[in-house]
Structures are given as C-alpha cells and as structure tokens.
C-alpha cells in the first residue's frame, strides 16, 4: 500500500498482475471499454480468465473470448452493438469452450456492491420469476426475507482478483480520476478486488492536482497496482471528453468477429501485429488517415462552472480563548 510511483508499460502491467485463471473485473460499459488492456491480454495469451461485469460493448469481450483467453463469464449484457451480436461469445458457448452465467444489470452490479461492501450476498429486486434465475443458481437464489418472511432474490458477492479499467486521468501514485458517471459500475468492480486495479489513462497527472479535487477520485492509490499512460486506450469505444465512439471501426471489427476464420486475420493485423497500443493507433492512422482520428474529436465546451473551495477551519484560533459561561450554568 505504499505511496510509490506505479507507472509502467502495458506489457509490464499485464505480465506482472494478471495470472492465468484470475477472476477479472472487466471495466467500462458501452463506452470506456478497456480495449488496450484487452489487446495486451490477448498478446500475452492469458488463459482461463473468469470475467465479471454488468454490460460491455464494442466487442472487446468478444475478442478476448475469440482469442481463447476466457473460461467463464458472469454478466448481464455483452455484444458489439454496431453489428448487433456477440459472435465469438455465441460460438464459444455453442462449442462449450466457455460457460456463461447471466444476470440482470442490477443483479450483476449488486453482486459487485456486495463485494465492495465485504459482505457475502445482497438482496436485489430483479431476476425473480424469469429464466435468468432458473439457469443461474450459481449467482442467484430466492430466500425468505428473515424479517417479513416474503421471498426475495439474493445475489452472491463477486470479488475479482484484479480489475482492468480505462480512465480519463490518473496520477502516478494510482489515484484514478473520472467525471461524467463514476464509470457506471467501475467504482464497485475496482474497490471489491482482492489484489487491485490496473488502469490505463489518457493522461497522467501530478498527485497534487488529484488532491486539489479529491471528489473526482474513483479509485484511491491503495487499490491500484499499475498505472499505464495509454492515449486512445478505449478505442473504438468512447472516452468521455477525449474522443467519441468509432462507429466505422466497431462495424469493421464486428465483420471479423462474425466468422471464426476471419477473426484471427483481424487479430494478426490489429493485435499480434502491433507491439503495443501506440503501434495499434499508428496502424489506425496509416489505414484511416489523421482525419480518421480527427473525426472522433468530441464537442467540448462543457467545463464545470461551479466555483468551490475545499477550505477547512483551523481550531488553533481557540488557543487561549476562555470558556464562555453565564449565571444560569454557574456551578
């Protein structure tokens, strides 16, 4: 837990902190998907991962499954929305390479909240009465509320070994900064980890900047294992305030996800053929030009207008000031 500089390369972070067989919280939602980390896990051929998450888009998890890194997944929603299907996941379920356990979004989020709280399970209103609960007794049960006797669904706690997330900024101690949602479920998926969090960030900042506005810290340094400076680390998903969703590339990637014979061709070119994420982005600009990246620029102009100050009071001003009393409370 020491306060140390945790910066390292993508390659170092994945090789040092992700083991075969780990349970991994897969960060983000429909945007902020940890794509650079996904690619690096594939490059390092990690095996038998157990993925936990609520929802995940742009086919990042599809790539991870297609590359045979995953053994099991517990989640509510996964696909590449831009081709409207989770092709590699679908094939891997059919061939029984992976086991998929379904819950609702808040079922999955509640499982992570229970992990965040350090408690064994938590009640949730959804899932009851449907095929979700019928086919996932591993994560969900219906019990009698011990106070009223009424039936209620409970979901077991999930605690990942390690979390992988992408963020807008992080300081080099590992304080992770986000704005515009707290990463949908990232605050629970990260803090509930047993070992800690690997973060890729668009920008690395000085800790004194973090400390000037600590309300924005999503993950405090003591949960962070590695900080990787990684511009475009969520591409082709969006990163709030930095770039929008790359619809064209998501569709392009999706056309490869569709076929088990084509997917390795995509991986050879865009993952195995790139030594790191900077090389992937270089390849992108070779193929789509700088205007490809320029098209992703966000519409800015939404800076906070709230003026505030984290000022505190110094109790030393009371030094030497006698207690106040009057005739009613005398002796």
């Amino acid at each position, binding site marked *: 837990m020491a306060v140390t500089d945790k910066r390292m390369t993508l390659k170092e972070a994945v090789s040092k902190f992700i083991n075969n067989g780990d349970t991994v919280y897969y960060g983000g*939602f*429909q*945007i*902020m998907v940890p794509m650079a980390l996904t690619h690096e896990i594939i490059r390092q051929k990690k095996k038998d991962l157990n993925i936990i998450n*609520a*929802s995940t*888009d742009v086919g990042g998890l599809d790539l991870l499954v297609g590359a045979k890194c995953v053994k099991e997944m517990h*989640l*509510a*929603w*996964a*696909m590449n*929305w831009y081709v409207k*299907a*989770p092709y590699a*996941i*679908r094939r891997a*379920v*059919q*061939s*029984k390479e992976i086991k*998929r356990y*379904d*819950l*609702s*979004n*808040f*079922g999955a*989020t509640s499982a992570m*909240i229970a992990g965040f709280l350090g408690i064994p399970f938590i009640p*949730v*209103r*959804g*899932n*009851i*009465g*449907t*095929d*979700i609960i019928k*086919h996932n007794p591993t994560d969900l049960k219906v019990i009698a509320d011990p106070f009223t006797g009424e*039936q*209620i669904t409970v979901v077991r706690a999930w605690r990942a070994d390690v979390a992988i997330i992408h963020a807008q900024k992080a300081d080099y101690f590992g304080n992770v900064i986000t704005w*515009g*949602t*707290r*990463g*949908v*479920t*990232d*605050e*629970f998926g990260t803090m509930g980890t047993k070992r800690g969090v690997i973060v890729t960030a668009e920008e690395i900042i000085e800790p004194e900047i973090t400390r000037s506005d600590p309300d924005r810290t999503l993950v405090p340094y003591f949960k962070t294992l590695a900080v990787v400076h990684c511009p475009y680390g969520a591409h082709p998903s*969006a990163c*709030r*305030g930095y770039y*929008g*969703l790359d*619809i064209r590339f998501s569709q392009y990637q999706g056309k490869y996800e569709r076929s088990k014979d084509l997917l390795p061709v995509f991986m050879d070119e865009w993952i195995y053929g790139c030594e790191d994420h900077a090389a992937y982005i270089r390849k992108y600009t070779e193929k789509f030009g700088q205007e490809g990246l320029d098209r992703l620029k*966000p*519409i800015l102009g*939404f800076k906070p207008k709230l003026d505030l100050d984290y000022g505190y009071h110094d109790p030393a001003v009371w030094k030497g000031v006698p207690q106040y009393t009057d005739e009613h409370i005398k002796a």
Partner: protein
Amino acid sequence: MAANFKLTELMVVRCAKEINDKEVVFAGVGLPLVVVSFAMATSAPSMILFTEGGSIRATAPPGLAITVDDPALFANGDATFGMLATMAALQRGEVDVAFIGGAQIDKFGNINSTGVGDIEMPEGFTYFAGSGGANDMATSGKRVLAIMPQDPKKFVEKVDYVTTPGFLDGPGAREKLGMIGGGPTVVVSTMGVYKFDEVTKEMYLAEYFPGQSVESVKANCSFDLKVAPDVKVTEAPTAEELTILRNIDPTGFYLG
C-alpha cells in the same frame, strides 16, 4: 397531412405519446433513447430521463445518445451517477415508465433478449446480448412500455427464454412473486399498438398503422392475436413531428 414517413418513424412518434409530461422515464439502449429525446422536444417537455449509465436529466441531451452511458447524456445533465443511483430509484418504486426493446415478446408481454434455441442445449443456442437492465426495469418500473419491430419471429406464442418479466404465465403471477412494478401496458411495433387486457393480461391489438390492417398485423404475429372491438388506425405523423424527429437522429443511426 400526407407526409412521407418510415414505419420506424411512426413507431417512435406514436411511442412518445405514451409518455406523460413530468414522468420519470427509465430508457434502455436503442430506439427508447430516440423516443425520449423526441418526447422531451414535443409532448413531455418536463419529463425526467434516467438511464442505466447513471444519467439523470430533465433536459434533452445536446446530441443523439447512441448508448445509455453516452457522453451526450452527461453534458449539462442534472446528476451523473453510475448505475447504482438510477437502479436504486427503480427498486424504491420511483420510476413511472420502464421503457425497453427486445428480440421476442409473447402474448403476456414477456420479453426475450438473451437468445433463441434451448439454453439447456448450448450447442444449438444462439446468444444475443442478454438482459442488460431490461429485467430490472420491467420488474420494478410502475409500468412498462416496449418498442419492437413487428415480425412473426418476434411476436411469438412463447419466448425461447424469459429474460424480462411481463405477466409471466398470466394474472396474479407478478404479485405472487412480490414484484413492485405493474408490468407491461403498451407495446408499439412497426405495424401497430398493443395493450393488455385488464383481466386476462393478454396482449391485444388496439391500433394499426396507416396502410396496415388487422389481417396484415395478424399475419406478422405468431400467436392468436386478440383485437380490440374499437381497434383504430394510428394517426400518421405530422410534417412538423418528422422534422423534429429527423433532427434528433440526422444520420438515421436508429431510424434507418
């Protein structure tokens, strides 16, 4: 007013009329995001939008939100929590309208967004995305509004997998399980509008779109569809409505 329109456009315009002003609407990914922006620009200027991504806002987003955590939903929003805050409001019973899509629906309004085939035999099961928040929304929202293209493979006697509860196997099933939400009230497709019988909880055709007929809708529905005795033709969208709608999704990402 005989403006040219796509059936998807009428589906969105008609669906928006199911949202009352000042209601709290929890919108899922896809067409619901277009419908709420349209509703905020027309008949429900004071509605409040919630999404799974954690957006809480009383104004339309500045641009088209493609995802439920789209940056457009948080630019000048009222609150930018994550999933916890909006889903907690659902569980507390504070959401008026749960607004979802899906891949299959049956006559009791049960929705499948998990996959087709028999999940007990995974080699033949074709996975879709999964529940996402649809199950949570339909369990606890005060009422459920569903939007789904009309297709005999989508309007089925029995869904392959109940992802999201409608009235399950009929009257009383939701109450028995302690669900706090009232269940589905309206389904809008690309051919018509469906409501649910108060007693039997079965879906019936309440309106069909201009150019359609009871027969054409029935031909695109795989269960024996009941029809309201006073079934009527849905009003076509006005030119003004179409202009507003097309400005919300100018590239036709969702409207086609």
